[in-house]
């Protein structure tokens, strides 16, 4: 069984509550799909807690989230010059708070995080295969969702950007297509797509006092959403 978390956003209390819940379950792998940090003075403590788990805890696999991306941009560790997205969404004052919340040593560690993980036929990622900022939800165009799954040739995509919990199953699909070239016209073909799923894993720290995260059984494809109040 895998436990999949996202959106801690520096909320240490929420994260520790979820860790305690995980301890009661038979979990083999722990994934954290980004947004470890946020505008929260405990961001640094959350990162330390993740980097140095207790002896009886799993060592998590962690990928980069939107807030990590903003930290990395703020500290000039990527080519993008200005923290435009952060300022547009939250204002310049928030950029200053984020700067104060996370040390430059921690930002260097965040910068080395993976963009996402492919395990079996699953992609685990913060946003989408296009961008860490892209928010996939049940309201997203189903064609776009299918495209984001196909880009990595996976059947399951776990994401955390929206903070929502959902199980979105593309059950069947078809399309008729014909190609005409200078030399020939190919006969019409009907293409179909295999079943694919997009799973929103929830948010640990964004909506106090309620933390949500996801359990996934890779042997049965079973998904269970967990809610922990703290």
């Amino acid at each position, binding site marked *: 069984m895998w436990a999949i978390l996202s959106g801690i956003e520096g909320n240490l209390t929420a994260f520790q509550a979820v860790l305690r819940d995980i301890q009661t379950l038979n979990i083999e792998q722990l994934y954290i799909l980004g947004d470890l940090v946020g505008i929260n003075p405990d961001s640094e403590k959350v990162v330390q807690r993740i980097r140095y788990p207790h002896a009886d805890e799993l060592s998590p696999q962690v990928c980069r989230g939107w807030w990590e991306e903003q930290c990395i941009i703020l500290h000039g560790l990527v080519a993008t010059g200005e923290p435009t997205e952060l300022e547009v969404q939250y204002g310049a004052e928030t950029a200053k708070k984020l700067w104060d919340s996370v040390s430059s040593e921690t930002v260097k560690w965040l910068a080395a995080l993976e963009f996402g993980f492919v395990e079996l036929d699953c992609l685990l990622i913060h946003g989408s295969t296009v961008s860490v900022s892209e928010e996939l939800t049940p309201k997203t165009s189903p*064609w776009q969702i299918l495209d984001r799954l196909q880009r990595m040739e996976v059947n399951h995509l776990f994401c955390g950007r929206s903070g929502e919990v959902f199980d*979105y199953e593309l059950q069947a699909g078809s*399309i*008729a297509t014909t190609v005409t070239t200078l030399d020939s016209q190919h006969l019409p073909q009907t293409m179909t797509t295999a079943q694919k799923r997009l799973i929103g894993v929830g948010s640990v720290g964004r909506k106090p006092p309620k933390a949500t995260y996801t359990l996934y059984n890779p042997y049965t494809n079973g998904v269970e959403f967990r809610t922990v109040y703290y």
Partner: protein
Amino acid sequence: MKIAVMSCIHGNLAALEAVLKDIEEHSCEQIYCLGDLVGYGPFPNEVVNTIRQLKIPTVQGCWDEDIVEGLNACECSYPSLLAEKRGILAHEWTNNQITPENRQYLSQLPETLKIGNICFVHGSPQSNHEYLLAEMDAFTALERVLASEADVLFCGHTHIPYVRTLDSGQLEVKVSQPDSENNQFLSFTTPLKRIINVGSVGEPRHGRPNATYVIYDTFTEEFELREVAYNYQETCAAIIDVGLPPIFAWRLAKGLEYAEKAEDPTHICER
């Protein structure tokens, strides 16, 4: 309205002149160009001047972008290290030749143009480096048209012309959310969509040296893939005369991509 759409002229003035003559003979009311005015060929300024003089609405191609912003595409833009090395030579030569006025013109070209239910792009709606190949997965192709919010998506970049119809798209979806007691079952359909790749005026790769472009009737939705013969040897000789890599002349004469294919043509360069 009968429109002509062309792309990828790549500094080949003789090919452009032949295509413009063919367009005139077919009484098209409007011409659109999908970029890559420069690169590979020996007459970048002459081609840009012609497009400017004729006031042809044009979108920016990847070569046009690189001449403005500096060569910033990653190696994914080329199918091999050898192709990349030659591409850099062509970039440097063009960069030295282009006039400030023409560089300024290339810099202000839009990435997309939208006229009614038609969208014009160089590569794809998401990147002017992305190749929309005829053999691309049909669902992926449909997503690109839907992303453009058009019914007909005109593109170039691959240098091989084709028209692809995408019809009766259908998806069945089940959504489960803990806050909602019942599962939602949703059905999605799409009307007829088309991708029209107009090939290349100045550096074709469909197996013959002829220039290609497309005539499209916006009322009847009829299309015609046009192939125009011209004196390509003239351009081949000029490529060698100005000191560009001779392989570009060989490739133009064959109408073929000589190198191996890129491993992932849909890869979008993040740089």
